């Protein structure tokens, strides 16, 4: 047991340090992800959330709360779990500071991702309210992917992408690649102006 605790404490310290180092170097030069600012036209479609409720997509992208969108699927390996871990970490950090965010995951496997599967997925990641997972017809999902310049013909060839909507002007910060939770939080703060 002593070994376990020692191991974990040392590991956490190292993780913290390596995060400091990587955040520093990211500021200094290369980030491991690509950042651009984009304008997107969101199609007027209705999708279905994890509770089986219909959701008009455009209605999610209004108001003063920043919105973050990603594309994942329920049985994905590799990158979706990492994106979702990023979401849940961000939710936790913003809950501490009392800042708002709306998280929207859109499935790229609409045939398999039923509300039940999506609900279980969110539960598995201990998602809090404010993180919705949406499915719909293949045609509608294709149109959303195209709108975000993120169309892929097959879910097996997807890539890590987060998009943060700036509520002030409706622009989107497009983040291509996998971010540390610190980088993700910084990108959020840059959008809300802190």
């Amino acid at each position, binding site marked *: 047991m002593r070994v376990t605790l020692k191991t*974990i404490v040392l590991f956490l310290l190292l993780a913290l*340090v390596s995060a*400091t180092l990587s955040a*520093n170097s990211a500021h200094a030069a290369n980030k491991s992800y690509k950042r651009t600012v984009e304008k997107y036209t969101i199609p007027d479609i209705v999708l279905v959330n994890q509770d089986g409720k219909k959701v008009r997509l455009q209605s999610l992208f209004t108001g003063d709360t920043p919105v973050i969108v990603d594309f994942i699927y329920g049985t994905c390996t590799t990158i979706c779990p990492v994106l979702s*871990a990023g979401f849940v970490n961000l939710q936790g950090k913003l809950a501490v500071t009392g800042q708002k965010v709306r998280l929207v995951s859109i499935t790229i496997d609409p045939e398999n991702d039923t509300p039940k599967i999506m609900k279980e997925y969110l539960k598995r990641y201990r998602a809090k309210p404010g993180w919705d997972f949406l499915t719909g017809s293949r045609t509608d999902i294709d149109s959303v992917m195209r709108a975000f310049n993120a169309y892929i013909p097959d879910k*097996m060839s997807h890539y890590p992408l987060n998009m943060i909507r700036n509520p002030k002007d409706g622009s989107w910060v497009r983040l291509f690649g996998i971010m*540390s939770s610190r980088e993700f939080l910084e990108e959020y703060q840059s959008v809300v102006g802190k």
Partner: protein
Amino acid sequence: MNLSYPTLKTPLLMIELFTLLFFLSATSLFAAAPPPPNLPQGEIMRLGERMYREGVLPSGAPMPAFIRGDVEVDSTAFSCSSCHLRAGLGSFEGGVITPPTTGNKLYKPYIRPPSLGVIADRDGRDVYAKTVLERPPYNRETLATALRFGTDPTGHSFNDVMPRYPLADNDMSILINYLELLSKEPSPGASKDEFRFATIITDDVSQEDRQALLRPLQQFIAQKNQQLGMYNDFIKFGYTPTAEMKYAFRRASLDIWELKGPPTTWQKQLAAYNNNKPVFAVLGGISNSDWRPIHDFCEAERLPCLFPITDFPVISETGWYTYYFNKGFAQEGEAVARYLNRMENLSADTPIIQIVQDSPAGRALAAGFDKNWNEVGRPAVTTITLTASQLVDPAALAKILTKHKPGVLLFWTEAGLLQNLPALIARLPATEMVFVSSSYLGRQTANIAENIRNKVFITFPYRLNPYVGTKTGGFDAKIPILTGAKDFGDRRIASRTTAMLQQATLQGLNMIYDNLYRDHLFDVMSMQMDLVMRDYERFSFGPGQRYVSKGCYIIQLGPGENPTLLPRSEWVVQ
């Protein structure tokens, strides 16, 4: 701000130096080899498998893990096997190459194959995340360091998606021991020269259906053996085979496992066949009864069973070793639940009645509806189960309708009911909708009376789109598939078996190369891209997904003796 910069920077550098020293001392602390666990091998496999597949420590607590330095993850949400997959041979998805993690591979040097080089796609994105070009073999010490700190024996850091695991020595030791044993020996029924397969046929199958199954299967085996002959000639004439060719050609054989008598005796019969001459996988198969005894046998033996022809698959979220075309009758019931749930103008208090023939098919259709209706949060509907003779008694049926006054009526019955259907519908309110199953009604579906066709909605789990490819191009686009009333009742045994062999299965067998593990076959098959099929609109895969066709149309019939099939829903309704 500029003035304060150096004062801020100095402590930061100090911290970094301090932590660097700390890191080095910690690394040396952990460099000690974890002692071998003092446990029987079976227990190591059980505990290690739980860590690897479920992310649960031997203590029962979740395995802690970190990604990208500071993103904490819970390993029960995604585990080692999520990416390295069950057989531990790794995966490729979303541009991320996950390398093998078995002792066989880790304790040997790695050299990246040229096919996984740095290649950019049309948009300039790397097709693959950059992986290390080569590395020396791991040993237990360097493997423990890799798992804890994400560095290989040369100190090269892993891709950010690989979590780092702060494991205690004993836990680390169990996990490493498990990895050493994982996929250590090839599975039974496969060798570098041969694949042995079997197919399963139960004694309730007609001679005609049996032949429809066996013809494509035996043709597939003959083709594989013929190709091997051609390959051997190719070598004989001095040509050099590619790496893929070396693994694509093996002798193949097919045994027929005939199951006779009551289903309770099937597992014993299967065990006798399998013990006598084990096979690598079961290719197809056919039964008119519940597939469960065979499903359970394959689960227990960890024996892959690929796409049997059955209307009664086991509906399970955790079943692993059988790939099904779809959920059979249950999928049609499910499609009706989804369709009704999405209807804008169906009032919540509309009475829905299921009239179910007391038969396996009737019960499977009703169960599929009930399960899905419950999942979308709807209250249970009234279900009335009747015998075949009760179902052809108009007075008995009229009494039920008068009592329940259904707004939606689901008739999960055989075709005997159809002659009374117009009279029954005439007794109901004008808004009445009736749902029936084309698989259960069979050929007679086309004989639904013309004057009630606007009221009757039919489940149809096959393709309607006439073009397999795009209409304007592509190899498959030239011959439209004209699905019509003639296709009702066709079980498509030969065409479905041919397609599953030539597309999904062949691809899986070719992609395992020399990694002859049953689990690996399933791992690579589950990572396949979608397939467009002749009988179904689409096959889609994914880790753990075992019903590859997810769709079922709700259709109505057009007028005439050979009516057009009119889709009233999408292939998949969400």
